[in-house]
């Protein structure tokens, strides 16, 4: 198979370039990560992140033929050749496919991604009906891979000010949790022209999410709450 790889090694003092390589691999039943591992076995200077290799840890997000995907769950056979692999867009590149995720995580942390409940803890669990629990379905499953946020032009323009789809999805995860008591604070934080309202609903995030989640819908629900609070 033919691959076109984005290569960048800061110590080499060379600008980034695209490298054409060919790999003798039978794509049947294999994932893109398998190909990357074989490429690395041949040339150990190729750098990328990986961990669980089954799509639950979120390490190996890359941009393949223009789409953000997790390499470990992208079937090799489905890819058009030459397979062009680049780092996620919109984040500083450290080396090859390794990007600096710091702006992404800073936005994630900005929304206070933890349950806030100041009531004294009961002896046993806090009760939550299956219906209440269902409210956070589609939000708590996020693996923080960054595919959605780095597919969002608003995040490209405002990485320091726009929370981005992943962060907003997590904000919704806590707003929607019947046990969380900080809805008002969370809405106060998001009531901002930049943090939330840079989202124009173009749904790039939905298309990019490898877990099939829908950040745009959650952002819409946050907006609904903000409007309801206002009027």
């Amino acid at each position: 198979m033919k691959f076109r790889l984005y290569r960048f090694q800061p110590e080499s003092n060379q600008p980034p370039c695209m490298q054409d390589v060919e790999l003798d691999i039978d794509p049947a039943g294999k994932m893109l990560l398998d190909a990357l591992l074989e490429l690395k076995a041949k040339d150990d200077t190729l750098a990328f992140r990986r961990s669980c290799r089954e799509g639950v840890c979120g390490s190996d997000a890359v941009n393949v033929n223009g789409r953000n995907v997790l390499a470990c769950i992208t079937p090799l056979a489905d890819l058009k050749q030459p397979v062009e692999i680049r780092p996620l867009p919109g984040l500083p590149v450290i080396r090859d496919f390794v990007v600096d995720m710091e702006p992404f995580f800073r936005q994630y942390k900005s929304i206070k991604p933890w349950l806030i409940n100041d009531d004294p803890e009961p002896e046993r669990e806090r009760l939550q009906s299956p219906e209440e629990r269902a409210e956070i379905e589609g939000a708590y499953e996020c693996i923080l891979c960054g595919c959605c946020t780095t597919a969002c032009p608003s995040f490209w323009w405002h990485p320091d000010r726009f929370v981005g789809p992943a962060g907003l999805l997590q904000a919704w995860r806590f707003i929607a949790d019947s046990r969380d008591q900080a809805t008002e604070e969370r809405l106060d934080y998001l009531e901002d022209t930049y943090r939330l309202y840079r989202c124009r609903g173009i749904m790039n995030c939905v298309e990019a999410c490898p877990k099939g989640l829908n950040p745009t819908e959650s952002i819409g629900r946050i907006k609904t709450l903000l409007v309801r609070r206002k009027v």
Partner: protein
Amino acid sequence: MRKPITGTHSGTGWWLAQRVSALILFIAGTGLLLGFWFAAPFDFAAWQAAFRHTSLKLLVWLVVASLCLHAWIGLRDVLMDYMKPVALRLTANVLVLLVLALCMVWTTVIVWGSDG
């Protein structure tokens, strides 16, 4: 990286205004279009007569006002995204506001001024 400056605690109002103005534009605009389509005042007298009704004046004024408000929010968004230097953005914002305000004044003059 410079400290991000944000936290205006506003946004929902503008967002809502953008939606509401769009809705007005759609409903009133369609109404006006349909009205002119089916009962178009072809000569100047008929046109003037139609515009003696305060309701039509209000409707036209409302459509233009909505358009200007909608345009202001939209252009401000675009400038926020693409025009990074603050001084430049502020200048552009002021210019856009001026043009839109002029449009409003002009519309008001046209709609009500012809009465005299």
